[in-house]
């Protein structure tokens, strides 16, 4: 049952993924954390961090990671978890693959570019909303701690957030370098 659910969920994520990696984060979070409770918000955030620091696309990375971790959490043996990781990753790929085959055969020469253009003119503004929603939904006590839990950890998190935001936005610091700095800061502070 778990495997069927993994297949269906990641197929859905694959086919509705428009607008690049960041847009996908909202989709992934909705399916993996909110709907299926396969990972916690903190675990999901860790995957995004890992995806930022490894060369692969986040769609594949999070599928692989989720497939493996969920199977282990549900008590499946190691080999089944590896299988589950591969299944999840391939599930993301197959539907877009069929779309690409169709497009390459029929659309590329006499392409219906006006309609495609219109559809994307509609999608582009909501992608911004999708990404904003992903960021807002990850601003949780799991990721930032909370004043009730520890004022110190909460304020530290806010400072790290601002530091990283300014670093990326204004100074175009390399994201991997930034994550390593913040990780080392975490090691030193906590």
């Amino acid at each position, binding site marked *: 049952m778990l495997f069927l659910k993994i297949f269906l969920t990641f197929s*859905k994520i*694959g*086919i509705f*993924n*428009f607008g690049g990696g960041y847009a996908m984060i909202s989709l992934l979070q*909705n399916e993996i954390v*909110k709907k299926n409770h396969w990972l916690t918000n*903190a675990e999901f*955030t*860790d995957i*995004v*961090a*890992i995806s930022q620091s*490894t060369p692969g696309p986040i769609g*594949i990375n999070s599928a*692989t*990671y989720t497939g*493996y971790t969920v199977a282990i959490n549900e008590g499946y043996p190691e080999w089944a978890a*590896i299988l589950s990781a*591969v299944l999840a990753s391939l599930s*993301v*790929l197959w*539907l*877009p*693959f069929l*779309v*690409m085959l169709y*497009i*390459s055969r029929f659309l*590329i020469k006499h392409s219906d570019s*006006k309609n*495609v253009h*219109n*559809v*994307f003119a*509609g*999608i582009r*503004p*909501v*992608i*911004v*909303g*999708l*990404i*904003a*929603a*992903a960021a807002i939904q*990850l601003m949780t006590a799991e*990721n*930032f701690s909370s004043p009730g839990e520890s004022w110190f950890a909460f304020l530290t998190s806010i400072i790290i*957030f601002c530091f*990283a*935001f300014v670093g990326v*936005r204004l100074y175009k610091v390399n994201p991997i370098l930034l994550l390593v700095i*913040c*990780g*080392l*800061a*975490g*090691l030193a502070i906590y």
Partner: protein
Amino acid sequence: MVPLLESEIVDKGGYLSKEEFVDIMAVSQASPGVFAINMASHIGNKLHGVKGGVVCSIGAALPSIVIILLIAMFFQAFKGNVYVEKFFRGIRPAVVALIAAPCFSLAKSAKLTKQTLWIPVVSCVLIAFLGVSPIWIILVAAVSGFVYGRLKK
């Protein structure tokens, strides 16, 4: 990713001309799915049909699958390790910042105006606070864009 693909496929391999490459890139961006994998499946398909497409897309996905699988195993083994946990406690707020930052540059490239600014705001509120699935938002946006474009001319 794109410069790497271009140097391997067009310059070194000579599999495709520059024009074909640019065409494929446009189609890959407009299609659902992971951009890099779309490029791979399309290039493979162009060279050797469906079989080529399958081989190329699996080839493009395989390294990340293996790397992330190893990392996932590592994390499972070091679950609860104090140092790993501390490291990630520092990283998590930064990740949220990395996700929030491109909102602003994307808003610029989507050419949002005072009349269209409500679109991302409403989508964001629907998803983050009212629990609407982003899938519905994308579907509605795609259909509206299509209909609006038709009506406009």
